[in-house]
């Protein structure tokens, strides 16, 4: 198959979006629905809520921690095989759980095995969407990520029904069958070879490069692309090092740190919104309604924000849209302790839900903008990996704060400041980059070299003076190419 000039932005791409949508349903929505089983587990195994709730933490943590493993497998073998393997593993995990005889058995089968299976599916599927779309990337991601909200909405009553009809064992068995649909999604992920994969995007654009190092990089990247498979150990080791060289990119490092703080800030809110609402006098029904609003507006935020940031006027400012969404979420959190009754909490749910959906859509887009499409799979693996520890640590810390201070104010303030810090960090990084660029421009303006052309005899590139990612233009001039025939 000859490599394409650019992402198709449609056609089979929409099947990929459908596949990713189903992957998000089968992973994120199923994870959220596991908490519906807790009452049954508590009664059956005679354990208290805290020990049963560990299952949910283990699944979430395993899904995020093993995300890099998922990207590794799909990069080196194939995306289809990776996702199908993940689907099989998680299905087996759920089926084994239906025969569980103790809570520890559930921790291993439902927690570790299923979580691992989900991890093998989640980030490769999202990376694949990025490969198939360029102009409509954010919209495609919006539709794909909305799966978690829509999935939770539909799956929650269905799971409840299954438990009533078949008890938790039967329900887990049938859920295992449902999760097997991940294999179908895997089959949909047809590999696509892009021109871009042969040429490195990231290294080129982050710094004003010395030609020598650039030549070497290009040679190496072309060796390591999945199109050419050389399985010698040195090459593999070398290739995996090269694969992860985006880790040293300053843009990526800033993104990684900000993701840590952002994940820390957003996770306790979902856990503590209902208890907080109950503590200020909202009734059970109204508190559940708040959560529903959050879920539904999340979906709307996913899709509309994705569509919005695809518009030409906003496309250049996607980075700022992302940090704006995170900052707004943080601001909402800061206001939360002041909102003491139901009519005030409803707009909070609306705003928080909308911007939560918004930034979730933009995470893969911003990552792709920073590291480029070829490394997107591995980079996403790392980004989701960085979500894991905050997800695990943050709710218990918030709970401890609530217990010691006696009110929710401290924990919500901490969450709010964490998210605002994350967004401010990104803002400063971008400003620093701009300042550095103007400084460099003033230096290089005396040499009048706006165009740098490197040739290595086979492939020549020209990069125009604008160093911004999106504005870089590649003019591949193949000196050995067709004109000689």
């Amino acid at each position, binding site marked *: *198959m000859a490599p394409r000039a650019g992402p198709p932005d449609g056609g089979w791409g929409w099947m990929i979006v459908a596949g990713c949508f189903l992957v998000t349903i089968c992973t994120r929505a199923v994870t959220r629905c596991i908490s519906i089983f807790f009452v049954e587990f508590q*009664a*059956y195994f*005679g354990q208290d809520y805290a020990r049963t709730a560990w299952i949910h933490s283990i699944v979430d943590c395993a899904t995020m921690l093993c995300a890099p493993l998922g990207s590794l497998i799909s990069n080196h073998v194939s995306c289809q095989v990776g996702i199908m393997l993940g689907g099989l593993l998680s299905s087996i995990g759920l089926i084994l759980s239906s025969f569980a005889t103790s809570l520890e058995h559930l921790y291993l089968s439902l927690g570790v095995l299923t979580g691992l299976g989900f991890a093998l599916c989640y980030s490769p599927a999202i990376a694949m969407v990025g490969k198939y779309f360029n102009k409509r990337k954010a919209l495609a991601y919006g539709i794909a990520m909305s799966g978690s909200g829509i999935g939770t909405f539909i799956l929650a009553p269905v799971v409840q029904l299954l438990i*009533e*009809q*078949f*008890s938790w*064992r*039967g*329900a887990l*068995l*049938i859920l*295992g*069958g*449902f999760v*097997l*649909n991940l*294999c*179908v999604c895997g*089959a*949909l992920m*047809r590999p696509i070879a892009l021109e871009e994969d042969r040429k490195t995007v990231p290294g080129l654009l982050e710094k004003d490069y010395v030609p020598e190092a650039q030549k070497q990089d290009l040679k190496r990247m072309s060796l390591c692309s999945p199109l050419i498979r050389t399985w010698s150990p040195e090459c593999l080791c070398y290739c995996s090092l090269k694969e992860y060289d985006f880790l040293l990119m300053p843009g990526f490092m800033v993104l990684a740190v900000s993701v840590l703080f952002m994940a820390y800030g957003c996770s306790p809110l979902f856990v503590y919104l209902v208890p907080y609402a109950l503590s200020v006098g909202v009734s059970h029904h109204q508190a559940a309604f708040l959560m529903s609003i959050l879920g539904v507006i999340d979906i709307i935020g996913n899709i509309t924000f994705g569509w919005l940031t695809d518009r030409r006027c906003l496309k250049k400012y996607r980075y700022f849209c992302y940090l704006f969404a995170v900052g707004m979420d943080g601001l909402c959190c800061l206001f939360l302790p002041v909102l003491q009754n139901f009519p005030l909490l409803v707009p909070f749910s609306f705003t928080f839900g909308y911007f939560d959906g918004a930034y979730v859509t933009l995470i893969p887009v911003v990552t792709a903008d920073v590291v480029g499409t070829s490394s997107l799979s591995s980079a996403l693996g790392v980004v989701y990996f960085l979500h894991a520890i905050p997800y695990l640590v943050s709710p218990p810390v918030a709970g401890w704060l609530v217990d010691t201070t006696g009110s929710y104010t401290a924990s919500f303030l901490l969450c709010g400041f964490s998210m605002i810090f994350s967004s401010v960090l990104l803002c400063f990084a971008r400003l620093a980059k701009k300042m550095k660029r103007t400084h460099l421009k003033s230096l290089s303006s005396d040499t009048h070299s706006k165009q740098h052309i490197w040739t290595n005899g086979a492939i020549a590139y020209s990069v125009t003076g604008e160093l911004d990612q999106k504005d870089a233009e590649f003019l591949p001039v193949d000196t050995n190419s*067709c*004109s000689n*025939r």
Partner: protein
Amino acid sequence: MILLGPDLTTAGFNEEINLNKSKALYVEYEVLLPGESDVHVEKNIFLGSAVKIELSCRLADKHSHMKILQVTWKKGNETIKHINKTEISWGIQLTVSENRKLGSYTCTVTGEKEFSVVFHLQVPQIAGREKPVVSYKGDSAILICESRSYTPIAWTWYMTNGSEQIAINDSLMLDKYVIDKADANVTHLKILKLTEEDGGTYWCEAAFELGKSKGKLKLKILSLMVPLKPFLAIVAEVVILITLIFVFELYSKKKEKRAEDEKEFDQIEQLKSEESNGVESNSARHRKV
């Protein structure tokens, strides 16, 4: 402990709850007449332990000028002597110490119109479970009954065999039934090694100081085949879809390859015909890509 509602001008019940666990021995209940929509009102009062209770009925303000001909307090057919608390309220005081004293006490106020209220004094009700508990053959099932607000003295479990209710004695059948008595407010019945005959209706009976109360639970036993059928249906669907997708992929690859081959063939033909025609061209040959 005097319990009166906050707003006496609103029609409807004018009462406050509570039987405090800390041995509050005296409670009062007052009902405003008439009720919301009806001239006859009913009120349920649950008593977990022996109490001294005062029941009273009072006329609402808008009827306070009604000429009252007669006020009667009755339990069944038996009239009870009442006291006039005020001009428009009348009450009775009871010491409820045994089951006999529970029942329905009626206050009837007759004047231009007749109003009445019935107080139902009863033991606390145990809520069973409406939806059946589902479990599988060979597995174990747990039936739970609880009474949070009132602490019972003892719990007993009954199983229905035909039309009879048989008490379950866990000390006799240790490997079949386990009754958990850890918490006085909750009881767990664990049934091991389930078989088809174990399905049916179970009763959990709570014994209070003043009487007994039962809750109903249903147990349904399924065989493993029951959830297996939908599971296998989904697996079949998955396998079919995967096969279809791979077949489609192979087909579209073949089509693309065929199209490429045809294109190359056409171009070779074109070159051949150009050569054979002896067409000379000084300009670079352009290949249609």
